[in-house]
């Protein structure tokens, strides 16, 4: 039996939906093994969903899926076959780590597949040589061009010699030369490993011809399968693209003014845009390198090149968004910067991301832009109506932009860009992500604008099909313009058959002159004797450490995150240490002494001598007292009645009035307590008693403030702050670390490599535990040096307790990360879910012994309740390991519970 005859994957009645959107509807398919299989169809028809399911990254909702002779829904089968599958998700390098270098990225994947260092090094060297990436081994993945990122993604996929290689749109947005090289590379890999099955999704119909077998998809369904040849024959079409179009149901076209007049643009006049030697650098990176061109009135001028070749930067310089580093940019004959507001009125701009306000409706978007261009009310209404009609938006006027399908959103973005009837339209990759039919329609609108309304259009694209429709083209690569001419002129001057060939010729010429990518060489067979035998599917320290190393590297390269992780808690402790104090000192008081006798002065002497009170200017009247209390000048006032001294001398009862500012109740109560204290002191003053009757029986209450004789809140606050900060920051950092991967897409690596959830979580946790201990050391120093809170108890107990505690708090962050979807939600969710129980239920402000009901229960469930006794106990109470054994034991019990809960909540696959 030939290996080709075996199906590498079989899908039966597979359906998948996202909310109400059906991504796959009842798909049944058998994909033959050992071949190059292509998935073709426009964007959003379910190709990516199908591939993710086959790779085991996405959960099967309904239907049966067998991959490599086993049920992919079976976790054991997935674990067994995942070392044989490699998956490269859509979006160039979405599963790569952009701050890691090329070599580090491949190395991470090697570790995840359990390879030892010599084997990894050998394979990496071989892959880098094979893909021409060797000269860029130390460059961060985020700074690679689209073509290089795609090759790196391929290296990462190939490091473990998969039997099934799944590539989701690997060539989208990549320049034609890189695309060509990519297919050559795939071809060589397949030559070497005939048994390997390769499954590729693509939106470029021209690529369809090179596959052995095709799956044509539309609208969540498979419309046809078979070899390109059989598809062509069945539909009597010259190309697969035409065959595909023939298979689709005809679409209604409400908008049709027929093709616009294709007559070339009227030449002559002054150029609308002139660029001379335009250069733009970011640091040591040159994004645009000595670019010169002119755009004449009424022409459609195209910029063609790969993602990241400098198209967008050039456009930004020409719109005035970026100043050029060198050279000259003229708009309507004037320098861009000098043109200012006036020039902007004559320009319309549409960016890659469409730049619409998603929350506004179609009409609101149009009206807002018209207003910002200060169209008079009647003109505005007329233009909005015109645009709605011209761009066929009538059915959607009251829909919000974010709810529109991509194609319609794109038309709206164009309408918004032309609502003020500009003379020049600058469009930056206006058709990215839009399906071919919507794209055709969009170009009809552009032609109409240019030919009928005389608008000059400057457009960038990476689609050759679009480039052919421009009047003139500039081919761009690595920040330089390689050639400028009409499409025909470019093809003819190179003697090429197509525009794409012409572009490739130019790229090769540029590469030959030295700056381009290195030539690709064939490589030998990699060592492949020992694979998989030694990898445990369930737990491997090597994979765990791979996560640790990667996390540490990434963190070290993210300055804001690192600074926050290292210094955040120290800074916040300083703030909180000074900011929360329950000490009431230097209470400002003033006296309203109506008596002014020796006795009244003697009474006030008590207050003046107290360290708690500071006297302010005396009060003149009761009105003065009220006013100054209201203004906050004084916090307390004493009013001594007229005849106070006389009454006292005669032994007649008299009363002194004390007024306390009640704006801050806690302080008011404390101040009232101080006043009573001073008053009691006055009553028991022996000097006073000499003139009085003998004292009546009185009890003396001796108050001993244990652990903190001066009753200075810093001794309680500093240990509590250490506990709070170690709960807050490590939990936030941990939650962010996990959710970041979800948001950036690298979480896919967890789903499709042998990495288990436990290894993933623990591996990521280790660096944060280490950082938390560093933070603890800083805070400990701060306590000693700045706050002067000495450690009275056992250092060993404190350090051990802290280590257990930060392990538990990072696990708490881990648990929160399992249900947070975005980083910002993880951040605020963790902050709220930490600060609330920490300040209210864990004993920081209210002692645990005073908690009742729900608060008591919540407090018991929060690790800080058990660390606070350790921190307070060792710092302030002078306790040792034996006294704290109970708290430490409970604290330790949190670790397996929290980690276990996080493991259970963490999905094995994307849903």
């Amino acid at each position, binding site marked *: 039996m030939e290996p080709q005859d075996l199906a590498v994957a079989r899908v039966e009645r597979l359906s998948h939906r996202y909310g109400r959107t059906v991504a796959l509807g009842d798909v049944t398919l058998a994909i033959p093994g050992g071949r190059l299989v292509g998935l073709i169809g426009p964007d959003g028809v379910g190709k990516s969903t199908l591939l993710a399911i086959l790779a085991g990254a996405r959960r099967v909702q309904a239907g049966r899926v067998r991959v490599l002779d086993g049920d992919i829904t079976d976790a054991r089968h997935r674990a067994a076959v995942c070392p044989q599958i490699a998956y490269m998700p859509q979006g160039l390098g979405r599963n790569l780590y952009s701050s890691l270098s090329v070599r580090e990225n491949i190395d991470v994947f090697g570790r995840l597949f359990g390879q030892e260092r010599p084997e990894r090094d050998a394979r990496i060297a071989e892959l880098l040589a094979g893909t021409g990436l060797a000269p860029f081994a130390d460059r961060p993945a985020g700074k690679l061009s689209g073509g290089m990122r795609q090759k790196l993604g391929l290296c990462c996929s190939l490091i473990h010699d998969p039997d099934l290689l799944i590539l989701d749109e690997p060539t989208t947005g990549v320049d034609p030369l890189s695309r060509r090289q990519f297919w050559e590379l795939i071809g060589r890999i397949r030559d070497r490993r005939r048994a390997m099955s390769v499954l590729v999704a693509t939106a470029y119909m021209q690529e369809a011809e090179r596959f052995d077998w095709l799956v044509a998809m539309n609208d969540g369904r498979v419309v046809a399968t078979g070899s390109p040849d059989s598809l062509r024959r069945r539909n009597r079409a010259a190309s697969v693209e035409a065959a595909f179009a023939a298979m689709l149901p005809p679409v209604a076209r409400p908008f049709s003014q027929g093709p616009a007049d294709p007559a070339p643009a009227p030449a002559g006049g002054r150029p609308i845009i002139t660029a001379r030697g335009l250069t733009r650098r970011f640091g040591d990176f040159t994004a645009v390198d000595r670019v010169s061109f002119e755009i004449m009135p009424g022409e459609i001028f195209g910029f063609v090149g790969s993602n990241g070749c400098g198209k967008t930067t050039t456009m930004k310089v020409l719109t005035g968004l970026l100043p050029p580093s060198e050279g000259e940019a003229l708009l309507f004959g004037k320098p861009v910067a000098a043109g200012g507001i006036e020039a902007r009125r004559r320009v319309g701009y549409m960016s890659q991301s469409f730049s619409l306000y998603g929350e506004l409706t179609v009409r609101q978007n149009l009206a807002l832009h018209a207003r910002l261009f200060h169209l008079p009310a009647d003109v505005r209404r007329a233009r909005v109506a015109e645009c709605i009609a011209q761009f066929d938006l009538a059915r959607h006027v009251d829909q919000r932009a974010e709810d529109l399908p991509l194609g319609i959103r794109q038309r709206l973005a164009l309408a918004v860009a032309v609502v003020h009837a500009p003379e020049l339209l600058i469009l930056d990759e206006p058709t990215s992500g839009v399906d071919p039919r919507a794209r055709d329609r969009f170009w009809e609108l552009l032609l109409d604008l240019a030919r009928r309304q005389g608008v000059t259009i400057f457009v960038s694209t990476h689609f050759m099909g679009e480039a052919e429709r421009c009047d003139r083209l500039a081919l761009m690569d690595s920040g330089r313009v390689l050639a400028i001419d009409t499409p025909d002129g470019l093809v003819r001057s190179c003697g090429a058959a197509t525009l794409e060939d012409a572009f490739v010729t130019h790229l090769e010429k540029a590469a030959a002159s030295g700056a381009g990518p290195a030539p690709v060489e064939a490589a030998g067979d990699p060592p492949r004797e020992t694979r998989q035998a030694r990898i445990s599917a369930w737990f491997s320290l090597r994979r765990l450490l791979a996560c640790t190393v990667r996390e540490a590297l990434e963190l070290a390269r993210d300055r804001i995150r690192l600074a926050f992780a290292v210094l955040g808690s120290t800074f916040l402790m300083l703030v909180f240490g000074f900011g929360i104090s329950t000490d009431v000192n230097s209470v400002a008081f003033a006296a309203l002494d109506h008596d002014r006798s020796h006795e009244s002065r003697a009474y006030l002497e008590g207050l003046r001598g107290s360290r708690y009170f500071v006297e302010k200017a005396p009060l003149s009247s009761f009105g003065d007292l009220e006013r100054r209390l209201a203004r906050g000048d004084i916090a307390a006032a004493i009013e001594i009645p007229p005849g106070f001294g006389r009454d006292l001398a005669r032994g007649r009862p008299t009363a002194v009035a004390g007024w306390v500012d009640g704006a801050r109740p806690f302080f008011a109560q404390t101040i009232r307590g101080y006043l009573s204290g001073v008053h009691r002191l006055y009553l028991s003053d022996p000097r006073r008693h000499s003139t009085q009757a003998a004292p009546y029986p009185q*009890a003396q*209450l001796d108050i001993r403030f244990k652990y903190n004789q001066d009753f200075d809140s810093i001794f309680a606050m500093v240990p509590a702050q250490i506990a709070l900060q170690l709960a807050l920051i490590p939990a936030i950092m941990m939650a962010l670390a996990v959710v970041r991967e979800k948001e950036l897409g690298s979480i896919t690596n967890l789903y499709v490599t042998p990495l288990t959830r436990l290894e993933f979580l623990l591996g990521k946790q280790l660096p944060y535990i280490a950082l938390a201990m560093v933070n603890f050391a800083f805070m400990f120093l701060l306590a000693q040096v700045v706050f002067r809170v000495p450690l009275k108890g056992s250092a060993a107990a404190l350090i051990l307790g802290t280590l257990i505690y930060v392990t538990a708090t990072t696990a708490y962050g881990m648990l929160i990360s399992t249900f947070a979807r975005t980083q*910002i939600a993880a951040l605020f969710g963790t902050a709220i879910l930490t600060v609330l129980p920490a300040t209210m239920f864990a004993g920081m402000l209210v*002692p645990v012994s005073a908690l009742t009901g729900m608060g008591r229960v919540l407090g018991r469930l929060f690790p800080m309740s058990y660390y606070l006794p350790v921190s307070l106990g060792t710092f302030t109470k002078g306790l040792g390991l034996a006294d704290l054994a109970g708290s430490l034991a409970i604290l330790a019990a949190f670790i397996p519970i929290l980690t276990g809960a996080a493991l259970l909540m963490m999905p094995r696959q994307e849903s």
Partner: protein
Amino acid sequence: MTALANIFWLGTKELRSFLRDYVLLGLVVYSFSLAIIAQAQSSSQELRNAAIAIVDEDGSTLSRRITQAFLPPYFKAPVPIAERDIVPALNAGRYTFVLDIPPRFESDLLGRRPARLQLDVDATAMVQAGLGASYVQQIVADEVAGFVSRAGAAPTPTPVELIARIAFNPNAETGWFTSVMGILNSVTMLAIILAGAAVVRERERGTLEHLLVMPVTPFEIAMAKVWANGLVILVAVGLSLTLVVRGLLHVPISGSIPLFLAGTAAYLFFATSIGLFLGTVARSMPQLGLLYLLIYLPLAMLSGSNTPLESMPPWLATLLQASPTVHFVAFAQAILYRGAGFEAVWTRIVVVSGIGALFVAAAILRFRKATALS
């Protein structure tokens, strides 16, 4: 004129965006309603359910009277313990107070011999320790005085009495304080996050670039964000103060709410411009969040809304005079608690406006620079 029109129309767009962002909308509603109620009902700044133990070595009528005088809601029922358990119990944090009544306490007192009791306080429980100690002192003094006069030991009446009243809040209800301070902290928190998120959102979606290629200046974009987000918060503050604080929590508000709102408006220029500033520094929402924590927490913690400046080190209190949040809290307390009028607070409002104007200018400069180089 065109600038004003631009600022106005851009601002209406901000308002629409805000109203559609349910997460932020929810955050605003929560911060000015449930969060305020929760803070008003928290007992973190008062004596509630304090745990007390009593070592009664006297076993007399008086000692029993004293024991029975510790009542909820201030104290939990006192727990009788033995003298040797005092230290372990305090070490473990089981009780905050332990009152030791020695043998022959009652007879010493009646015999006019020195009679002493001892109160051990766990001073690591800061709020309760201080307040509770003075409560215990008062309770013991009252019980002793009552007992002595009933026993006919014929005391001379106290010739001088201290009648101490707490102005503006006679029962020292914490909820009056924490609810309004909660509003002030929410103002700072939301002004920063709303304005910051408004900038980062436009950056992430690319709409900021789009605005900058239109005949709109960065100044107009920034001012639109300031007024729109400021207005949202101002309305929320007004509603929260009248409906939640006065209506639901029955906190009397002495001063003029319009005066307070005018002052808040001045403060919002400062707070939103901080948000704009952070929005230009942060590259993404998570970065904004981290920066925000580092700015908001110090502003709020060191504003006097938790701990008065008098309790901070003098150098810090002096330094904090430069923080508009400090003045905001000060004039808010003066107006809302003490009924102070314009003449008492105008200087602070002027300071807030002055510093606010500086920050708006700085934020706009930074905004222009950041947008020019993006």
